[in-house]
């Protein structure tokens, strides 16, 4: 029983960290109809920006402060990269799914390779911030502090995102745009500016996801972008395309499912979520929870 709870915590924390990438991917897909194969690369750059700053200033300032600054750096890196990707490349190919796929693939290849150019191809060690290191034991249930933190971040982002989407005018515009972006323009709102904003914020979230992810495994390498991206796509599908809360539920579901499967039948660890995505697309295209936004 205690083991099960530990497993659940692991699963939920995995879900929380996928959520950061998946939620932004979902809103971007829903609002801009953009298939972004470079989303994992934004995650990757966030992780490396974090690592570079954290490993760089760790000795000089207070550990927690260094960590916060590094997180900020990752967020900013993601945001800037997001603006560049959107304005220079993706804005040219709106409406053309084939072209988007190809251009974002190109961006993924180039920017992943650039990581190798700047930081090398080997893995680089990344430590957790001191105040989050450590493990507690509550009558058999092993609680990794860093994982609880990830869950907290996930919940925070979910609440903040939900509040922004439902309680602000910008959020209302985005929700309307996900359903019918043409009409939003016809009502007098410059929807393209929102496209850029949503993409940049989404990229920043992905960057944050990368920065938070690095200390889990303890290392970063150029490959981490793509594996996370596939999982994010799966969450977008099962959570319902375009739905923010759907991606929260989807991430939770996927995280727990993968933890359970990883424990029982490790061989199916990747096949299971991919199969689930295929099944949902075929039999329940509106998402596992029926939350996909209709157009």
């Amino acid at each position, binding site marked *: 029983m205690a083991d099960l709870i530990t497993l659940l915590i692991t699963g939920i924390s995995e879900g929380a960290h996928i959520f950061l990438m998946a939620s932004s991917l979902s809103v971007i897909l829903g609002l801009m109809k953009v298939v972004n194969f470079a989303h994992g690369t934004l995650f990757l750059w966030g992780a490396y920006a974090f690592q570079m700053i954290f490993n760089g200033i760790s000795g000089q300032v207070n550990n927690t402060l260094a960590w916060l600054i590094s997180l900020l750096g990752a967020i900013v890196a993601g945001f800037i990269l997001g603006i560049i990707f959107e304005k220079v490349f993706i804005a040219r190919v709106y409406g053309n799914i084939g072209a988007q796929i190809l251009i974002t693939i190109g961006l993924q290849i180039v920017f992943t390779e650039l990581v190798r150019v700047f930081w090398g191809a080997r893995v680089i060690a990344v430590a957790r911030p001191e105040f989050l290191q450590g493990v507690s034991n509550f009558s058999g249930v092993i609680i990794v502090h860093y994982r609880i933190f990830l869950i907290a971040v996930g919940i925070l982002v979910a609440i903040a995102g939900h509040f922004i989407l439902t309680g602000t005018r910008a959020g209302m515009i985005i929700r309307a745009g996900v359903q019918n972006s043409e009409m939003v323009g016809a009502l007098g709102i410059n929807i393209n500016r929102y496209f850029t904003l949503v993409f940049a914020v989404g990229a920043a979230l992905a960057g944050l996801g990368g920065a938070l992810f690095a200390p889990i495994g303890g290392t970063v390498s150029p490959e981490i972008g793509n594996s996370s991206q596939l999982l994010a796509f799966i969450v977008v599908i099962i959570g319902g395309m375009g739905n923010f809360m759907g991606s929260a539920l989807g991430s939770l579901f996927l995280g727990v499912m993968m933890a359970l499967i990883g424990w029982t039948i490790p061989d199916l660890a990747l*096949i299971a979520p991919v199969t689930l995505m295929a099944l949902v697309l075929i039999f329940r295209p509106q998402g596992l929870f029926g939350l996909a936004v209709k157009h």
Partner: protein
Amino acid sequence: MGNITSRFPNLITIPKLLWLLAGIVILIIPPISTTATITMVSRIMIFAVYAMAYDILRGYIGIIHLGFALFIGGGTYFVAILFANVGISIPILLLAIVGTTIYSIIWALIVGKIAAKSGLLATAMITMAFAEIMRNMMERWRTVTNGLDGLTFRVPAPFDNRTFMYYACFVFLLLMAFALYKFTTSPTGRVWQAVRENEQRAVFLGYDTNRARTIALLVSGVVAGLAGVMFALLNRFANTDVLAMQMTYNAMLYSLVGGSGSLFGSIIGSAVVVLFQNFLLDLRGVHFIFERWLIFFGSLYILVVIFMPKGIMGFVETIRERWKHKKGGKIYES
């Protein structure tokens, strides 16, 4: 409204002289080149078939198949697994071919059912998932496939002779190009293009779009599977990379560079991209920046989409139109 015709000059309209020239060039390469060159051109020809098959889906019927690697990968693995585990002979090769064909047919039918009821994006994602499942399965089935490390095997005579293999690839290319050409100019081929332009309208016009789509998938899948067989024979090696997303991305790039919607474009595209790739790899010796040749390769995707979205054939077509215009011919708006 305009007639629905292929956007680009079809194979036959390329001047006959050019054909003859190309044919001669290809025929005389083996005696005068290194093994490396012979192998490279063989590879180009196989990829040309692979790209043409991909473009049947993308450029003709309009399906984006993000898991297209599973067809060529299937063909490669059928040969590899049988040769490595069962035996090396022509009959076994034939068995592999039969197996690949059945495998491709099954996958084609599955995707056909899905594409009939799902949108473009959903189909793209599902096919991506399928290829990932296949790749993952092959990777875990280490006892048979040796996973990422791959299988090395010998091939039966006369395929073990590089020059023979080269001409075999050439014949393969000619046969497949001819077969696909026949399909694209057949009534079914016209339905493919009608579906690509506007499926709803094609349905209203009375075309059986589901049947046309299934045929496209079958043709495309089987041809790509056969390309996989040739690929295995050429390389004498197979690992899970042949089922990876990069393999699908390659097909997309070849047909993009050459010009989607034109069989000849796929042939040109594969030649250009493989030559460019080799060129970049060779440059590594010259300057260290080319160590990171992937950057240039990735940039190719971006640059072609932005500046030459219609590919080389599209560019040629534009020149042709301007030439006609200059000569005073009329250009009709569609």
